[in-house]
Protein backbone atom coordinates (compact mmCIF):
# COMPACT_ATOMS: atom_id res chain seq x y z
CA UNK A 1 0.00 0.00 0.00
CA UNK A 2 1.48 3.30 -1.05
CA UNK A 3 0.55 6.40 0.83
CA UNK A 4 0.77 9.23 -1.61
CA UNK A 5 1.71 12.74 -0.64
CA UNK A 6 -1.05 13.95 -2.93
CA UNK A 7 -4.45 13.98 -1.33
CA UNK A 8 -7.29 12.91 -3.58
CA UNK A 9 -10.89 13.76 -3.08
CA UNK A 10 -14.34 12.50 -4.05
CA UNK A 11 -17.15 15.06 -3.81
CA UNK A 12 -20.60 13.53 -4.11
CA UNK A 13 -24.25 13.83 -3.23
CA UNK A 14 -27.08 11.35 -2.60
CA UNK A 15 -30.62 11.75 -1.23
CA UNK A 16 -30.15 15.51 -1.00
CA UNK A 17 -26.98 15.32 1.11
CA UNK A 18 -23.52 16.22 -0.13
CA UNK A 19 -20.19 15.22 1.30
CA UNK A 20 -16.53 14.85 0.40
CA UNK A 21 -14.14 11.99 1.08
CA UNK A 22 -10.40 12.67 1.07
CA UNK A 23 -7.81 9.91 0.94
CA UNK A 24 -4.07 9.55 0.49
CA UNK A 25 -3.93 6.11 -1.15
CA UNK A 26 -4.83 6.25 -4.84
CA UNK A 27 -5.79 2.54 -4.89
CA UNK A 28 -8.47 3.21 -2.34
CA UNK A 29 -10.69 5.18 -4.69
CA UNK A 30 -12.32 2.08 -6.19
CA UNK A 31 -13.05 0.65 -2.73
CA UNK A 32 -14.58 3.89 -1.52
CA UNK A 33 -16.76 4.19 -4.61
CA UNK A 34 -17.88 0.59 -4.44
CA UNK A 35 -18.34 0.01 -0.71
CA UNK A 36 -18.46 3.23 1.26
CA UNK A 37 -20.52 5.61 -0.85
CA UNK A 38 -24.29 5.22 -0.65
CA UNK A 39 -26.28 3.69 -3.52
CA UNK A 40 -27.27 6.23 -6.14
CA UNK A 41 -24.44 8.66 -5.37
CA UNK A 42 -23.56 11.23 -7.98
CA UNK A 43 -20.38 13.24 -8.35
CA UNK A 44 -20.76 16.99 -7.89
CA UNK A 45 -18.58 19.84 -9.09
CA UNK A 46 -15.28 20.09 -7.20
CA UNK A 47 -16.20 23.64 -6.21
CA UNK A 48 -19.49 22.55 -4.58
CA UNK A 49 -19.69 23.30 -0.90
CA UNK A 50 -20.45 20.05 0.90
CA UNK A 51 -22.37 19.31 4.08
CA UNK A 52 -19.65 17.13 5.56
CA UNK A 53 -16.05 16.11 5.07
CA UNK A 54 -14.59 12.66 5.79
CA UNK A 55 -11.03 11.44 5.32
CA UNK A 56 -9.24 8.14 5.20
CA UNK A 57 -5.53 8.30 5.83
CA UNK A 58 -3.00 5.50 5.71
CA UNK A 59 0.01 6.18 7.92
CA UNK A 60 3.25 4.34 7.13
CA UNK A 61 4.25 4.52 10.79
CA UNK A 62 0.75 3.99 12.16
CA UNK A 63 1.58 0.85 14.13
CA UNK A 64 -1.13 -1.80 14.54
CA UNK A 65 -3.85 0.60 13.47
CA UNK A 66 -2.40 2.47 10.52
CA UNK A 67 -5.70 3.63 9.03
CA UNK A 68 -7.39 6.79 10.27
CA UNK A 69 -11.01 7.59 9.42
CA UNK A 70 -11.86 11.17 10.26
CA UNK A 71 -15.13 13.01 10.61
CA UNK A 72 -13.90 16.56 10.46
CA UNK A 73 -16.94 18.49 11.65
CA UNK A 74 -17.41 16.19 14.63
CA UNK A 75 -13.67 16.20 15.29
CA UNK A 76 -13.62 12.44 15.58
CA UNK A 77 -10.71 10.31 14.53
CA UNK A 78 -11.02 6.53 14.38
CA UNK A 79 -8.01 4.24 14.14
CA UNK A 80 -8.49 0.84 12.54
CA UNK A 81 -6.34 -2.07 11.44
CA UNK A 82 -6.95 -2.50 7.74
CA UNK A 83 -8.60 -1.14 4.65
CA UNK A 84 -11.74 -3.30 4.95
CA UNK A 85 -12.38 -1.96 8.43
CA UNK A 86 -11.74 1.58 7.29
CA UNK A 87 -14.22 1.26 4.44
CA UNK A 88 -16.89 -0.38 6.63
CA UNK A 89 -16.49 2.38 9.18
CA UNK A 90 -16.65 5.10 6.56
CA UNK A 91 -19.79 3.52 5.12
CA UNK A 92 -21.43 3.53 8.57
CA UNK A 93 -20.48 7.14 9.22
CA UNK A 94 -21.72 8.34 5.85
CA UNK A 95 -24.96 6.39 6.27
CA UNK A 96 -25.56 7.91 9.71
CA UNK A 97 -24.96 11.40 8.47
CA UNK A 98 -27.14 10.88 5.45
CA UNK A 99 -29.96 9.51 7.61
CA UNK A 100 -29.66 12.54 9.82
CA UNK A 101 -29.40 15.21 7.17
CA UNK A 102 -31.49 13.94 4.26
CA UNK A 103 -34.23 16.58 4.01
CA UNK A 104 -36.99 14.49 2.51
CA UNK A 105 -36.35 10.88 3.48
CA UNK A 106 -36.77 8.85 6.64
CA UNK A 107 -34.08 6.19 7.05
CA UNK A 108 -35.25 3.18 9.01
CA UNK A 109 -32.80 0.54 10.15
CA UNK A 110 -34.38 -2.31 8.20
CA UNK A 111 -33.96 -4.83 5.43
CA UNK A 112 -36.47 -4.57 2.60
CA UNK A 113 -37.47 -6.52 -0.49
CA UNK A 114 -40.22 -6.23 -3.07
CA UNK A 115 -42.78 -8.92 -3.87
CA UNK A 116 -45.43 -8.39 -6.56
CA UNK A 117 -45.35 -4.63 -6.21
CA UNK A 118 -45.39 -4.57 -2.39
CA UNK A 119 -42.48 -4.12 -0.03
CA UNK A 120 -41.72 -6.48 2.83
CA UNK A 121 -39.87 -4.43 5.43
CA UNK A 122 -37.86 -6.04 8.23
CA UNK A 123 -36.77 -3.50 10.85
CA UNK A 124 -34.25 -4.66 13.40
CA UNK A 125 -31.02 -3.92 15.18
CA UNK A 126 -27.72 -5.29 13.97
CA UNK A 127 -27.39 -9.04 14.58
CA UNK A 128 -31.20 -9.45 14.43
CA UNK A 129 -30.76 -11.47 11.24
CA UNK A 130 -32.04 -8.94 8.71
CA UNK A 131 -29.52 -9.64 5.96
CA UNK A 132 -29.93 -13.40 6.27
CA UNK A 133 -33.68 -13.12 5.90
CA UNK A 134 -33.34 -10.68 3.00
CA UNK A 135 -31.01 -13.16 1.30
CA UNK A 136 -33.53 -15.99 1.85
CA UNK A 137 -36.27 -13.86 0.30
CA UNK A 138 -34.07 -13.01 -2.69
CA UNK A 139 -33.44 -16.71 -3.30
CA UNK A 140 -37.21 -17.13 -3.59
CA UNK A 141 -37.46 -14.42 -6.22
CA UNK A 142 -38.00 -11.23 -4.25
CA UNK A 143 -36.61 -7.96 -5.61
CA UNK A 144 -33.86 -6.29 -3.62
CA UNK A 145 -34.46 -2.92 -1.92
CA UNK A 146 -31.96 -2.91 0.94
CA UNK A 147 -30.40 -5.08 3.62
CA UNK A 148 -29.71 -2.31 6.12
CA UNK A 149 -31.73 0.84 5.52
CA UNK A 150 -35.30 1.20 4.35
CA UNK A 151 -35.54 4.67 2.85
CA UNK A 152 -39.04 6.13 3.08
CA UNK A 153 -40.54 9.24 1.55
CA UNK A 154 -43.30 11.26 3.17
CA UNK A 155 -45.95 9.06 1.50
CA UNK A 156 -44.46 6.01 3.15
CA UNK A 157 -43.10 4.50 -0.09
CA UNK A 158 -39.90 2.48 0.24
CA UNK A 159 -37.13 3.58 -2.12
CA UNK A 160 -34.36 1.25 -3.27
CA UNK A 161 -31.12 1.54 -1.28
CA UNK A 162 -29.34 -1.40 -2.85
CA UNK A 163 -25.91 -1.48 -1.33
CA UNK A 164 -24.17 -4.85 -1.38
CA UNK A 165 -25.51 -7.28 1.18
CA UNK A 166 -23.39 -7.82 4.26
CA UNK A 167 -23.69 -11.44 5.37
CA UNK A 168 -22.05 -12.20 8.71
CA UNK A 169 -20.68 -15.60 9.53
CA UNK A 170 -21.60 -16.67 13.03
CA UNK A 171 -19.58 -14.71 15.59
CA UNK A 172 -18.04 -12.34 13.03
CA UNK A 173 -18.34 -8.59 13.44
CA UNK A 174 -17.59 -7.69 9.86
CA UNK A 175 -19.94 -9.06 7.23
CA UNK A 176 -18.93 -10.62 3.91
CA UNK A 177 -19.96 -8.42 0.98
CA UNK A 178 -22.28 -10.17 -1.44
CA UNK A 179 -23.86 -9.00 -4.65
CA UNK A 180 -27.59 -9.46 -5.02
CA UNK A 181 -27.02 -11.68 -8.06
CA UNK A 182 -25.31 -14.26 -5.83
CA UNK A 183 -28.74 -15.02 -4.43
CA UNK A 184 -30.43 -15.07 -7.80
CA UNK A 185 -32.15 -11.81 -7.00
CA UNK A 186 -32.69 -8.63 -8.95
CA UNK A 187 -32.76 -5.06 -7.71
CA UNK A 188 -36.01 -3.12 -7.53
CA UNK A 189 -35.77 0.19 -9.34
CA UNK A 190 -38.96 1.91 -8.21
CA UNK A 191 -40.39 2.91 -4.83
CA UNK A 192 -42.96 0.49 -3.44
CA UNK A 193 -45.84 0.73 -0.94
CA UNK A 194 -45.44 -1.52 2.08
CA UNK A 195 -47.38 -4.78 2.26
CA UNK A 196 -45.85 -6.20 5.44
CA UNK A 197 -43.69 -4.84 8.22
CA UNK A 198 -42.21 -7.60 10.37
CA UNK A 199 -40.23 -6.87 13.52
CA UNK A 200 -38.53 -10.25 13.82
CA UNK A 201 -35.75 -11.42 16.09
CA UNK A 202 -33.82 -14.50 15.09
CA UNK A 203 -33.63 -17.19 17.76
CA UNK A 204 -31.77 -20.33 16.90
CA UNK A 205 -33.97 -23.43 17.07
CA UNK A 206 -37.12 -21.42 17.55
CA UNK A 207 -40.13 -21.46 15.29
CA UNK A 208 -42.26 -18.71 13.78
CA UNK A 209 -44.08 -17.02 16.67
CA UNK A 210 -45.50 -13.65 15.78
CA UNK A 211 -48.42 -11.51 16.78
CA UNK A 212 -50.05 -8.64 14.95
CA UNK A 213 -49.57 -5.02 16.00
CA UNK A 214 -51.98 -2.14 15.51
CA UNK A 215 -50.99 0.60 13.02
CA UNK A 216 -50.15 2.93 15.92
CA UNK A 217 -47.93 0.36 17.58
CA UNK A 218 -46.34 -0.35 14.22
CA UNK A 219 -45.57 3.31 13.57
CA UNK A 220 -44.03 3.63 17.04
CA UNK A 221 -41.83 0.59 16.47
CA UNK A 222 -40.88 1.97 13.07
CA UNK A 223 -39.79 5.23 14.64
CA UNK A 224 -37.85 3.33 17.30
CA UNK A 225 -35.65 2.02 14.51
CA UNK A 226 -35.22 5.37 12.80
CA UNK A 227 -33.15 8.45 13.27
CA UNK A 228 -35.57 11.31 13.93
CA UNK A 229 -33.84 14.63 14.16
CA UNK A 230 -36.05 17.46 15.34
CA UNK A 231 -35.72 19.53 12.17
CA UNK A 232 -37.65 16.89 10.24
CA UNK A 233 -39.98 15.65 12.95
CA UNK A 234 -43.08 16.15 10.80
CA UNK A 235 -41.58 14.18 7.93
CA UNK A 236 -40.66 11.34 10.28
CA UNK A 237 -44.17 11.16 11.70
CA UNK A 238 -45.90 11.35 8.32
CA UNK A 239 -43.58 8.85 6.66
CA UNK A 240 -43.87 6.30 9.47
CA UNK A 241 -47.63 6.58 9.78
CA UNK A 242 -48.21 6.50 6.01
CA UNK A 243 -45.89 3.52 5.69
CA UNK A 244 -47.86 1.37 8.12
CA UNK A 245 -51.35 2.63 7.37
CA UNK A 246 -52.13 -0.08 4.80
CA UNK A 247 -49.64 -2.68 5.92
CA UNK A 248 -49.90 -5.81 8.02
CA UNK A 249 -47.59 -5.39 11.00
CA UNK A 250 -46.07 -8.36 12.76
CA UNK A 251 -43.79 -8.70 15.74
CA UNK A 252 -42.13 -11.76 17.23
CA UNK A 253 -39.39 -14.32 16.78
CA UNK A 254 -38.37 -16.48 13.88
CA UNK A 255 -36.18 -19.52 13.50
CA UNK A 256 -34.92 -20.72 10.16
CA UNK A 257 -34.68 -17.92 7.57
CA UNK A 258 -35.94 -20.09 4.73
CA UNK A 259 -39.15 -20.97 6.57
CA UNK A 260 -39.65 -17.37 7.68
CA UNK A 261 -39.26 -16.20 4.07
CA UNK A 262 -41.98 -18.66 3.00
CA UNK A 263 -44.32 -17.35 5.70
CA UNK A 264 -43.72 -13.74 4.72
CA UNK A 265 -44.34 -14.42 1.04
CA UNK A 266 -47.50 -16.34 1.87
CA UNK A 267 -48.73 -13.44 4.01
CA UNK A 268 -47.96 -10.70 1.50
CA UNK A 269 -49.69 -12.68 -1.24
CA UNK A 270 -52.80 -13.35 0.82
CA UNK A 271 -52.90 -9.71 1.82
CA UNK A 272 -52.69 -8.62 -1.82
CA UNK A 273 -55.56 -10.98 -2.64
CA UNK A 274 -57.77 -9.67 0.17
CA UNK A 275 -57.06 -6.04 -0.78
CA UNK A 276 -57.95 -6.87 -4.38
CA UNK A 277 -61.22 -8.48 -3.23
CA UNK A 278 -62.02 -5.44 -1.11
CA UNK A 279 -61.37 -3.16 -4.08
CA UNK A 280 -63.66 -5.25 -6.30
Amino acid at each position, binding site marked *: MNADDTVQELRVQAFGVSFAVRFNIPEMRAGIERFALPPGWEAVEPSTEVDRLFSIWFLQDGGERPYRVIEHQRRRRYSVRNQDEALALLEDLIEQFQA*YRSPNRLFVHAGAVGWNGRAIVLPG*DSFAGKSTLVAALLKKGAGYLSDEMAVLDSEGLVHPFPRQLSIREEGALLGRRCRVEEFGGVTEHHPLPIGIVAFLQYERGNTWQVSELSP*GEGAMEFLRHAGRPSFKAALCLHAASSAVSHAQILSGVRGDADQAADRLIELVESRATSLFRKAV
Partner: protein
Amino acid sequence: MQPQKIEEGIIVRPLGAETLLMHEPTCNVHCLNQMAYLVYLYSDGARTPAEIAERIVQENGLPCTADAVEIAIEQLVERSLMHCPLPELTPERQLRRREVLQQLAAMMAVPVILSLSAGRSSAACFTTNEHDTFFYPEASVPRSVNFFVETFDLTCEP
Protein backbone atom coordinates in the same frame (compact mmCIF):
# COMPACT_ATOMS: atom_id res chain seq x y z
CA MET B 1 -59.67 20.64 37.88
CA GLN B 2 -59.88 22.08 34.35
CA PRO B 3 -57.22 20.44 32.22
CA GLN B 4 -55.65 22.33 29.35
CA LYS B 5 -54.01 20.38 26.51
CA ILE B 6 -50.61 21.50 25.28
CA GLU B 7 -50.69 22.18 21.55
CA GLU B 8 -47.54 24.18 20.98
CA GLY B 9 -44.90 22.07 19.22
CA ILE B 10 -47.22 19.07 19.00
CA ILE B 11 -47.84 17.43 15.63
CA VAL B 12 -51.00 15.34 15.48
CA ARG B 13 -51.43 12.45 13.07
CA PRO B 14 -54.55 10.23 13.13
CA LEU B 15 -53.90 6.60 12.30
CA GLY B 16 -57.04 4.47 12.18
CA ALA B 17 -58.53 4.30 15.66
CA GLU B 18 -55.32 5.63 17.21
CA THR B 19 -53.66 9.02 17.08
CA LEU B 20 -49.95 9.77 17.07
CA LEU B 21 -48.67 12.90 18.76
CA MET B 22 -45.10 14.04 18.29
CA HIS B 23 -43.45 16.75 20.33
CA GLU B 24 -41.43 18.45 17.62
CA PRO B 25 -38.53 19.88 19.66
CA THR B 26 -37.70 16.56 21.35
CA CYS B 27 -39.14 14.11 18.81
CA ASN B 28 -40.86 12.24 21.62
CA VAL B 29 -43.76 10.28 20.14
CA HIS B 30 -46.98 9.15 21.80
CA CYS B 31 -49.64 6.78 20.50
CA LEU B 32 -53.05 7.48 22.05
CA ASN B 33 -56.00 5.15 21.83
CA GLN B 34 -59.38 6.70 21.09
CA MET B 35 -60.33 7.35 24.72
CA ALA B 36 -57.01 9.01 25.57
CA TYR B 37 -57.12 11.15 22.44
CA LEU B 38 -60.67 12.35 23.07
CA VAL B 39 -59.68 13.45 26.57
CA TYR B 40 -56.72 15.31 25.06
CA LEU B 41 -58.94 16.84 22.36
CA TYR B 42 -61.65 18.09 24.73
CA SER B 43 -59.31 19.42 27.43
CA ASP B 44 -59.62 23.10 26.61
CA GLY B 45 -58.93 24.57 30.05
CA ALA B 46 -62.61 25.29 30.63
CA ARG B 47 -64.22 21.88 31.10
CA THR B 48 -64.04 19.69 34.17
CA PRO B 49 -63.38 15.92 33.91
CA ALA B 50 -67.11 15.28 34.40
CA GLU B 51 -67.97 17.64 31.52
CA ILE B 52 -65.34 16.05 29.30
CA ALA B 53 -66.73 12.59 30.10
CA GLU B 54 -70.22 13.77 29.26
CA ARG B 55 -69.08 15.14 25.92
CA ILE B 56 -67.28 11.88 25.07
CA VAL B 57 -70.45 9.92 25.81
CA GLN B 58 -72.72 12.29 23.90
CA GLU B 59 -70.59 12.96 20.85
CA ASN B 60 -68.80 9.66 20.43
CA GLY B 61 -71.11 7.13 22.03
CA LEU B 62 -68.30 5.71 24.16
CA PRO B 63 -68.72 4.64 27.78
CA CYS B 64 -66.85 7.18 29.86
CA THR B 65 -66.78 8.55 33.40
CA ALA B 66 -65.04 11.41 35.17
CA ASP B 67 -62.76 8.82 36.79
CA ALA B 68 -61.70 7.53 33.39
CA VAL B 69 -60.97 11.08 32.26
CA GLU B 70 -58.84 11.68 35.35
CA ILE B 71 -56.79 8.58 34.62
CA ALA B 72 -56.17 9.83 31.08
CA ILE B 73 -55.28 13.28 32.42
CA GLU B 74 -52.67 11.79 34.77
CA GLN B 75 -51.00 10.04 31.85
CA LEU B 76 -51.15 13.13 29.64
CA VAL B 77 -49.68 15.39 32.34
CA GLU B 78 -46.92 12.85 33.01
CA ARG B 79 -45.97 13.02 29.33
CA SER B 80 -46.04 16.83 29.17
CA LEU B 81 -49.05 16.84 26.87
CA MET B 82 -51.33 18.63 29.30
CA HIS B 83 -51.35 21.27 32.03
CA CYS B 84 -53.35 20.31 35.09
CA PRO B 85 -52.59 20.34 38.81
CA LEU B 86 -52.96 16.78 40.05
CA PRO B 87 -54.10 15.89 43.57
CA GLU B 88 -51.67 13.91 45.69
CA LEU B 89 -51.81 10.17 45.10
CA THR B 90 -52.89 8.97 48.54
CA PRO B 91 -53.38 5.25 49.35
CA GLU B 92 -57.14 5.80 49.13
CA ARG B 93 -56.80 7.35 45.70
CA GLN B 94 -54.56 4.51 44.57
CA LEU B 95 -57.15 1.98 45.66
CA ARG B 96 -59.92 3.91 43.98
CA ARG B 97 -57.83 4.16 40.82
CA ARG B 98 -57.35 0.39 40.76
CA GLU B 99 -61.09 -0.17 41.06
CA VAL B 100 -61.81 2.32 38.29
CA LEU B 101 -59.27 0.67 35.99
CA GLN B 102 -60.92 -2.69 36.56
CA GLN B 103 -64.33 -1.21 35.67
CA LEU B 104 -62.91 0.49 32.58
CA ALA B 105 -61.17 -2.68 31.47
CA ALA B 106 -64.49 -4.50 31.65
CA MET B 107 -66.00 -1.77 29.44
CA MET B 108 -62.96 -1.82 27.10
CA ALA B 109 -62.63 1.89 27.81
CA VAL B 110 -59.19 2.23 29.39
CA PRO B 111 -57.30 5.26 28.13
CA VAL B 112 -53.94 4.00 26.87
CA ILE B 113 -50.88 5.95 25.82
CA LEU B 114 -47.72 4.33 24.42
CA SER B 115 -44.71 6.58 24.43
CA LEU B 116 -41.34 6.58 22.78
CA SER B 117 -38.96 9.13 24.13
CA ALA B 118 -35.78 9.66 22.21
CA GLY B 119 -33.72 8.77 25.27
CA ARG B 120 -35.60 5.55 25.90
CA SER B 121 -35.59 4.27 22.34
CA SER B 122 -33.17 1.72 21.00
CA ALA B 123 -31.21 4.74 19.96
CA ALA B 124 -27.86 6.08 20.80
CA CYS B 125 -27.43 9.80 21.02
CA PHE B 126 -24.60 11.78 19.69
CA THR B 127 -24.17 15.46 19.26
CA THR B 128 -23.39 17.00 15.96
CA ASN B 129 -21.45 20.16 15.47
CA GLU B 130 -24.70 21.96 14.71
CA HIS B 131 -25.53 21.64 18.42
CA ASP B 132 -28.47 19.49 17.54
CA THR B 133 -29.02 16.12 19.07
CA PHE B 134 -29.46 13.21 16.75
CA PHE B 135 -30.88 9.95 17.90
CA TYR B 136 -29.95 7.03 15.81
CA PRO B 137 -30.35 3.27 16.18
CA GLU B 138 -27.59 2.07 18.43
CA ALA B 139 -26.73 -0.75 16.14
CA SER B 140 -25.80 1.64 13.41
CA VAL B 141 -23.28 3.47 15.48
CA PRO B 142 -20.18 1.89 14.01
CA ARG B 143 -19.80 -1.34 15.88
CA SER B 144 -19.14 -3.53 12.91
CA VAL B 145 -15.52 -2.56 13.25
CA ASN B 146 -13.12 -2.78 16.12
CA PHE B 147 -11.89 0.80 16.26
CA PHE B 148 -10.18 3.21 18.56
CA VAL B 149 -11.77 6.64 18.60
CA GLU B 150 -10.55 9.93 19.93
CA THR B 151 -11.52 13.53 19.51
CA PHE B 152 -9.10 16.09 18.18
CA ASP B 153 -8.81 19.82 18.28
CA LEU B 154 -6.75 20.49 15.22
CA THR B 155 -8.33 20.37 11.81
CA CYS B 156 -7.73 17.72 9.30
CA GLU B 157 -4.50 16.23 10.65
CA PRO B 158 -4.28 12.47 10.86
